């Protein structure tokens, strides 16, 4: 009896995590570059209830009678499929089509990765620098900050979507290349990336080291589009269906607990 109580509890805990994951997806339905997450479950270990078992006609069966002890969270996996690219009026909005990530220098000096290309220009100590909305510098393909030459307006910056090279037009309308490409990194196993706040990802041993798209020739290069932002890839209808399933599954597991409790109370009433 205690078994089924704990089994029901494990189901409730798992479904709670499921709802947590779904609600985070729903909360981030409008977050630029957000990737939907999915909770997946596995059964817990099995316990042998009775060694010798017989089938309906009385023949001995080769396996023991076993009872499972519930469920557990196996993983929350991010779905790295492409989000829709939506047009944006900002000159410093970039959307990635492909598997790459923008590289960003965090405040702790480490490099982080993001799909959120909603950047802006800020006046840093070295000049007008491309940075994220949180003020972290966006890096180029060599790991350097992208700084505009003095006297250039950030409104005139253009990005060649085929090569990723950043340039600007001067007052006379002539194009000047900055000889810098916006940094793009790929991972052997993006599911292994560590998720951090502010839409950033960190490399881990599971994800493998970042592979520079410009120097690794065997990678399929992604395309960066200026004046586009990648929308979140959360499917609202799918999340709502998942939410219904999770809530009902939670409810059923709570019924298991109340029923087990009723049975325990009946056992308790045996002795008057």
């Amino acid at each position, binding site marked *: 009896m205690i078994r089924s109580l704990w089994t029901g509890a494990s*189901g409730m805990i798992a479904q709670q995590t499921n709802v947590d994951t779904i609600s985070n997806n729903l909360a981030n339905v409008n977050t630029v570059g957000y990737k939907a997450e999915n909770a*997946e479950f*596995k059964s817990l270990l*099995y316990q042998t209830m009775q060694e010798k078992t017989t089938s309906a006609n009385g023949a001995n069966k080769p*396996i023991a009678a076993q009872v*499972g002890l519930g469920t557990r969270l*196996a993983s929350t*996996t991010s779905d790295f499929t492409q989000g829709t690219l939506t047009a944006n009026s900002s000159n410093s909005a970039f959307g990635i089509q492909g598997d790459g990530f923008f590289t960003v220098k965090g405040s702790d000096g480490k490099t982080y990765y993001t799909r959120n290309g909603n950047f802006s220009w800020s006046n840093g100590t070295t000049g007008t620098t491309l940075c994220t909305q949180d003020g972290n510098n966006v890096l180029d393909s060599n790991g350097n900050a992208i700084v505009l030459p003095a006297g250039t307006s950030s409104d005139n910056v253009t990005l060649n979507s085929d090569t990723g090279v950043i340039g600007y037009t001067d007052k006379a309308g002539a194009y000047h290349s900055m000889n810098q490409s916006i940094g793009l990194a790929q991972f*052997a196993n993006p599911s292994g990336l560590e998720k951090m706040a502010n839409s950033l990802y960190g490399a881990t041993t599971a994800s493998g080291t970042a592979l520079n798209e410009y120097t690794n020739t065997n990678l399929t290069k992604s395309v960066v589009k200026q004046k586009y932002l990648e929308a979140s890839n959360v499917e609202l209808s799918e999340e709502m269906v998942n939410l219904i399933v999770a809530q009902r599954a939670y409810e*059923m597991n709570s019924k298991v607990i109340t029923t087990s409790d009723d049975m325990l109370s009946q056992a308790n009433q045996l002795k008057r």
Partner: protein
Amino acid sequence: MVKGLYTAYTGMLVEQNRMDILSNNLANAATNGFKKEGSTATAFKDQLALKIKDISENNVAKKLGSVNLGAKVGETYTDWSQGNYKVTDNESDVALDGNGFFAISYTDKSGNTSVKYTRDGAFTVNKDGYLVTKDGDYVLNENGALNNNGSAASYIKLNPNEKYTIDEQGNIFQNGSAVAQLGVADVSDYNYLQEFGENMYDLKNGGQVIKSNATVNQGSLEASNVNVVSEMVDMITISRAYESNQKAIQTIDGTLDKAVNSVGKV
């Protein structure tokens, strides 16, 4: 009289075990590739009841007929019917249509490697390019699945930076050429499959691996085949059967109470 007490008690135990199994089904209602389990109850062997030391019968033992002393768990079984598909569009998610299992090389803490079987196709490609489960256990190719070979030679290695497609036979293609074949195996007698946990099944000694005719569907997962309605109805019958056994014990206890405390009162 006291016999009945124990008979009703075995009934309560059986219902309790059924409840344990049912709660595991409901806890795994959202587990990929989970197969519903159930248990049967069998009666104890019938016993011959004899009447002995009856003076009116001159102390000759007399047969009264057979009496049954309760029930126990007969077997636990797994319902192998197909679960429905959940389309995920994730390239590393695969589902099987038909009878068959993916083969997994499972290494325990003491380093023993064995082949386990699963219907859960939520895989991923790790940084070295190996196709693994979400727990990091290696998925085996056709050769490893059919020959029960869980060694490194049977792992599936892909180029981690390339997209891949899997066809219905389980062939994995990268850049237009076949690089590996996903192992799908069936067993000749499902009675030899024992639940291991972690969504996996163990093949007991005597069980035989055969070629499977299941088709592989990339981009979907097989959901659990637990039927919520039937589980809820079962839960009602279990709790009521438990209750009636409890009532039987209370009634016998009531009669005993009469025998002990009221007989002999003036």
